[in-house]
């Protein structure tokens, strides 16, 4: 029973979902409220992690973080050590992996807002920031909650990406999904079962609380 791996997984999922929200809010805002020629390209890129195998994603993340990749070079020059095999590297790769799960619920909820409410806000003198904080966010909060829950759950179950860029370091990148995989490979099925069951129970409890307390959190693809 590996509580260290379990705690690491939860820490990773929580960190990723919060950081991703910060990234996804402006991205969703720009997709929902602006029309511009290259928009469909950005939407496709955001949706890519949905169709690309996680191992492919992880592999290219590994290359990007390496000494030949742009990200790796910048990181090395700033901090003096490589980005791969660190918790931060894992967070960044996981943010890419769960990106659509944060952006798409936000876009869906932004687009379902009555445009005239935003018009009214502008005419009453509110600039974009005020309209966003006082009108858009309060009315779109089910989308925000969905984005948080989905990216949390998705990151918790992440395996392929962590496998590629993690390096399996206990307490740092050995998440519970890697740990279970290792137990299976070492033929230690008992430990694998125990950890898996615990993960299942905790995830179920967390999700039940969120769905139960807030009836307006959507399942993965909300019908508009």
């Amino acid at each position, binding site marked *: 029973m590996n509580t260290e791996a379990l705690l690491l997984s939860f820490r990773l999922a929580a960190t990723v979902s919060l950081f991703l929200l910060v990234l996804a809010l402006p991205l969703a805002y720009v997709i929902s409220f602006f029309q511009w020629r290259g928009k469909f390209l950005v939407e496709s890129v955001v949706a890519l992690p949905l169709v690309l195998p996680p191992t492919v994603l992880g592999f290219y993340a590994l290359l990007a973080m390496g000494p030949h990749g742009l990200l790796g070079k910048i990181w090395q020059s700033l901090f003096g050590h490589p980005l791969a095999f660190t918790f931060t590297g894992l967070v960044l790769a996981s943010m890419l992996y769960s990106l659509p799960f944060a952006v798409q619920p936000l876009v869906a909820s932004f687009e379902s807002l009555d445009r*005239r*409410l935003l*018009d009214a806000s*502008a*005419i009453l*003198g509110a*600039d974009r920031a005020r309209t966003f904080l006082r009108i858009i966010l309060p009315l779109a909060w089910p989308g925000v909650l969905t984005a948080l829950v989905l990216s949390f759950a998705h990151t918790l179950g992440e395996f392929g990406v962590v496998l590629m860029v993690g390096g399996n370091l206990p307490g740092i990148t050995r998440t519970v999904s890697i740990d279970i995989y290792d137990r299976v490979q070492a033929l230690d099925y008992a430990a694998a079962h125990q950890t898996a069951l615990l993960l299942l129970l905790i995830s179920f409890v967390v999700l039940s609380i969120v769905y139960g307390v807030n009836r307006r959190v959507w399942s993965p693809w909300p019908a508009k």
Partner: protein
Amino acid sequence: MLNVKIRKLFRSDAQPFVLDANVSFPPGFTVLFGPSGAGKSTLLDCIAGLQQPDSGEICLGERVFFDAASNLSLPPQRRELAYVFQSLALFPHLSVEQNIRYGLDRLAASEQTERANTAARNFRIEHLLSRRPAELSGGEKQRVALARALATSPRVLLLDEPLTGLDSSLRRSILEDLHAWNDANRIPILYVTHNREEVDAIGERVVTLVNGRVQETGTPRGVLDAPRSIELAQSAGFENVLPAVVVEHRPADGIMRVSLDHAACEIEIPLGEAEPGSEVRVAIRAGDILVATEPPHFLSARNILPGTIVSVETRGAMVALQVKAGTVFQVHVTPGAVRALDLSPGLLVWLVIKTHSCHLVR
């Protein structure tokens, strides 16, 4: 004075059309009247800065809102106008008071309170300040929308069909409050509607918009009682719009004769600009046609047509008759008349139509 001179092309929907308006709005009420799809809401959106015209200028006195030539477009936030949409767009998550104060955040708190209370008082909604929009009735919502718009002391007020769906007594009372406000603050108020009653109730000035073009400007009577286009005639409540062919001109009598429905019958209408043989349309209000159960004599009316009642339909305080006299006419009479003359389908009657009740329409 709000001066608007703009063009805007619409590519979407079934038929592309061009909004082409060159019109000035002095302080006071101006009704923007026309059928749906004529571009009224778009015109308001352009004035408000929510949509951009392709070319032209919009200015309020000295302040330029929009000038295509110098690529200038003031954002809606800075135009200091108020706009009440058809859907009202009250913020559902804020209370009535918070809604009203929304546009006042640049003022000191005490002044915000004073303005909000004044607006609430003017529109008689003080007792609703702590409620949410979902808890309000239709009429109460309209009042809140107006209070919210006017609390900001705008320089122009845009109203897009603000009173649709309300019964007439409610409409009247809100319009009274609006008039009272208007008397105290003379600013241009653009009132969009397609309802004839509201036009009369507001009264000052009418601008008609048909297919994106401003057709007429004038008083309600002048513009709507003598409509020059079919769309306007239909909007303005002319139940009969009949195809006709001009037979001859009689300048000495001040009339021309036209034949209706492939020469089924002929009537006389005021002399107009249409050559004999040309196809025209004649608009007649159903309420302007009289019904007689005996051939009338010694009347000034020039059109007396024998016919048969086809149907009788009671619609509350009015009865609609369909009478075939050559062609089929819609005629409105009172229930009392129906009783007194015993009007029923199959009865032989005479229709009396004054020449000046017939309008030549293009």
